[in-house]
């Protein structure tokens, strides 16, 4: 194995040398088209949204810690949980998944100098930022923010039932962030298809990049549908159309079809990037290649394929959908997901596991996701969904999943943060933070499963008729407080470790190309590249004596 390359080969750029001169300060931030700076802006904004959304979560949990709490009024409660869901899904999880780390890492992982459309990439960020401002500004208009749940079910979200600017701001914010997502999807697809380094065939791409490619395809399939639905909703509200209202011959359930046709692929759009992060982290810290690389890729593609046929499992109880079709499609999703889970275990098997903070989060992800995944299988069965739908069982299920995703995301921050900033985060605080987050997640979600089975519906501001639910709710609130502490610890850690622990180019003995370049990478990412002959070019370069071996192609040592 030899590293080839003189400084000026691959990323030769017609107009700029590597010593990049440009504006500094705020103007640099406003005008940059560098995917790393845009990605960093995304990361900071998304973490800020996590903090805001998390704050709303704490408000919800305080309100629910007693059967008839007066901490929030009914109206305030509806606004708070709507904004909690909207911020977490639209403004945190999505942008964190495909805007933040993806933006920074994907081009570097495939040896590209930047995204295919750098200015479009910058536009994505500005649309995301202005969309976030639009949504949050709902709190400052008369009538308050949107209050019809993050799903905005049609007759409730029409002009008669939800008048006011808050709902319109919600629609506007979704239009902006929706276009932001579409542009990012276009960008990642084009980058992966056209800007790979020589030798980086599709089946040598790191799993993270693979997952982002599939995510981007799903974005392009799903987000336009949401945008169309939002425009219809806006027309219903202001231009007197009757697409979703019965009086004019419209069909309210149509909104649910459109919304969930976006909404369920969206779940995988959120999940796949974090799956990818974990798939990068586990093998690196186990010092092994990804177990079943090709199986992993096909599992991801299968999830994408099936994801377009499962939306109505959110609508089983409407009574107007084809139950068996959506049931079998949803159940089948469990198969590729299971393959991924076993591949993660297989990657650890007989490895040399280093329990860095990033690895701890990755393992926490796998365990928490196991719980969330298994409880999801119940919901794919209509008879079982009939009595768990819209109860806290569903809330618990998807919070298990999203708490797992949060762990995956923080694993990514600990793992790739040093590459972006050049400095490591404090490992000890990271591990303490992990245990707060991991235990907090379980203490938070497990009581909610039981509450759901006892019959507690979602989106209840009070439960005066069921004082017996109080204790379980109190436990969940304690869990939420633990999660809150872990978030504070993350911020503390960033402040404490600020420019303290220099990382070096390859602190983790990484596998993929981003660990070949400097930390932080230069303006167009690489001064030189290694030969790419497997999905672990950096590993092959550093450990030429230990290439990956397939089962049966080697002698036992």
């Amino acid at each position: 194995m030899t590293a080839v390359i003189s400084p000026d080969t691959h990323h030769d750029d017609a107009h700029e040398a590597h010593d990049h001169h440009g504006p500094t300060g705020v103007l640099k931030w406003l005008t940059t088209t560098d995917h790393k700076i845009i990605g960093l802006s995304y990361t900071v904004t998304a973490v800020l949204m996590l903090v805001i959304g998390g704050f709303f979560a704490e408000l919800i949990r305080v309100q629910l810690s007693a059967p008839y709490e007066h901490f929030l009024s009914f109206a305030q409660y509806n606004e708070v949980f709507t904004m909690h869901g909207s911020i977490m899904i639209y403004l945190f999880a999505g942008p964190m998944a495909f805007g933040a780390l993806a933006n920074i890492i994907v081009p570097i992982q495939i040896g590209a100098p930047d995204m295919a459309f750098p200015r479009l990439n910058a536009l994505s960020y500005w649309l995301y930022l202005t969309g976030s401002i639009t949504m949050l500004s709902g709190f400052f208009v008369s009538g308050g923010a949107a209050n019809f749940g993050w799903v905005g079910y049609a007759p409730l979200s029409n002009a008669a039932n939800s008048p006011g600017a808050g709902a319109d701001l919600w629609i506007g914010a979704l239009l902006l962030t929706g276009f932001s997502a579409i542009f990012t999807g276009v960008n990642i697809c084009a980058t992966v298809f056209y800007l790979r380094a020589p030798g980086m065939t599709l089946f040598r791409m790191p799993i993270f990049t693979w997952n982002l490619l599939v995510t981007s395809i799903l974005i392009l399939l799903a987000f336009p549908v949401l945008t169309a639905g939002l425009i219809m909703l806006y027309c219903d509200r202001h231009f007197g159309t009757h697409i979703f209202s019965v009086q004019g011959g419209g069909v309210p359930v149509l909104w649910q079809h459109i919304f969930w046709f976006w909404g369920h692929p969206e779940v995988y759009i959120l999940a796949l990037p974090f799956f990818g992060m974990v798939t990068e982290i586990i093998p690196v810290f186990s010092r092994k290649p990804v177990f079943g690389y090709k199986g992993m890729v096909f599992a991801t593609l299968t999830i994408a394929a099936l994801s377009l046929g499962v939306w109505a499992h959110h609508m089983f109880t409407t009574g107007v959908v084809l139950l068996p079709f959506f049931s079998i499609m949803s159940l089948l999703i469990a198969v590729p997901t299971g393959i991924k889970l076993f591949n993660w275990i297989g990657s650890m098997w007989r490895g040399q596991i280093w329990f860095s903070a990033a690895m701890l989060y990755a393992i926490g992800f796998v365990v928490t996701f196991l719980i969330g995944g298994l409880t999801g299988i119940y919901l794919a069965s209509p008879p079982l969904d009939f009595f768990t739908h819209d109860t806290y069982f569903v809330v618990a299920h998807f919070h298990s999943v999203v708490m797992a995703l949060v762990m995956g995301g923080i694993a990514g921050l600990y793992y790739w943060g040093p590459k972006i900033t050049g400095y490591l985060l404090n490992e000890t605080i990271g591990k303490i933070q992990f245990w707060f987050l991991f235990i907090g997640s379980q203490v938070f979600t497990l009581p909610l499963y039981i509450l759901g089975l006892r019959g507690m519906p979602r989106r209840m501001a009070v439960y005066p008729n069921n004082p017996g639910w109080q204790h379980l709710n109190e436990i969940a609130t304690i869990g939420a407080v633990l999660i809150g502490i872990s978030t504070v610890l993350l911020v503390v850690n960033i402040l404490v470790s600020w420019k303290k622990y220099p990382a070096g180019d390859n602190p983790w003995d990484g596998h993929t190309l981003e660990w070949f370049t400097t930390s932080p990478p230069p303006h167009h990412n690489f001064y030189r590249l290694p030969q790419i002959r497997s999905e672990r070019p950096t590993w092959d370069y550093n450990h030429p004596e230990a290439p990956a071996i397939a089962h049966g192609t080697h002698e036992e040592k």
Partner: protein
Amino acid sequence: MEVQPSPPQGAGPQSTKHRRRWIAALIPLTALALSGCTLPSFGAYKSDTTTGQDSYRLWQWFSVGAVVIGTFTFLLIVWAVLRYRRKGDTIPKQSQYHIPLELLYTIIPVIIVGVLFWGTVVVENKVVAMPKTNVRIHVNAFKWGWGFTYPGQNAVVVGNTTQEPTMVMPVGTDVAVTITSTDVMHGFYIPQFNFSRYALPGVTNEVTFHAVKTGTFTGQCSQLCGLYHSLMYFKVKVVTVKQYTEWLHGFDTPAGKLAAQAAENALKIQMSAGLPVVSAVTAGVN
């Protein structure tokens, strides 16, 4: 009810015998599955309707699967984490593929999914079945309360957030319940019946309950419907057929008629504030 594998091409008597033995082995298993009483509840209600009990048994078997698979996978993770901690600077064997193993954990989940789907379809067909019956109740959901009318009878019950209405229904009889909404979407949810169904504007949903014992159960709106969603309760009172008939006749007396009239007016006011109820199903399938 058992799914029988279709015989392979040119299957001889031997394979038939083999299949018989297989079926014989399945019978006690199926019996156990149908009894279900030896299994823990896994947190769900045993339910007081026939279909609710079917769902409950399905729940138990899903849970058995989840617990077995979950425990197995969890132990694998724990073993990997404990056993393979980094001990030195050696590089472990760089094994990447193990095709038989990977096929195994693809095929076994597919089989499990097949079994779960089969159970789902069997139970689902019972839950959504609508046998012919004379006892009918019409549920009208509105912001924020419920109205129960009994087609062909004088009885009308209406209630809101300050006064929960009670839906009276007979035990041991198929009761057809039609559900609709006058304004936004609501969820007609009775936890102890293991059932919920949306009340949709413009659509009339139908479900059949067959209660197996008398008692009073709580129900409430499960789908966010605006400000007082959390207070949209109702009660379901399952009584003997005799009591049910007597209760219905109570509305035929002058006093009862007056009460029913008042309730109906209240319902009409609610409905005129909301939407006209279109009885035809305008959305989606059937």
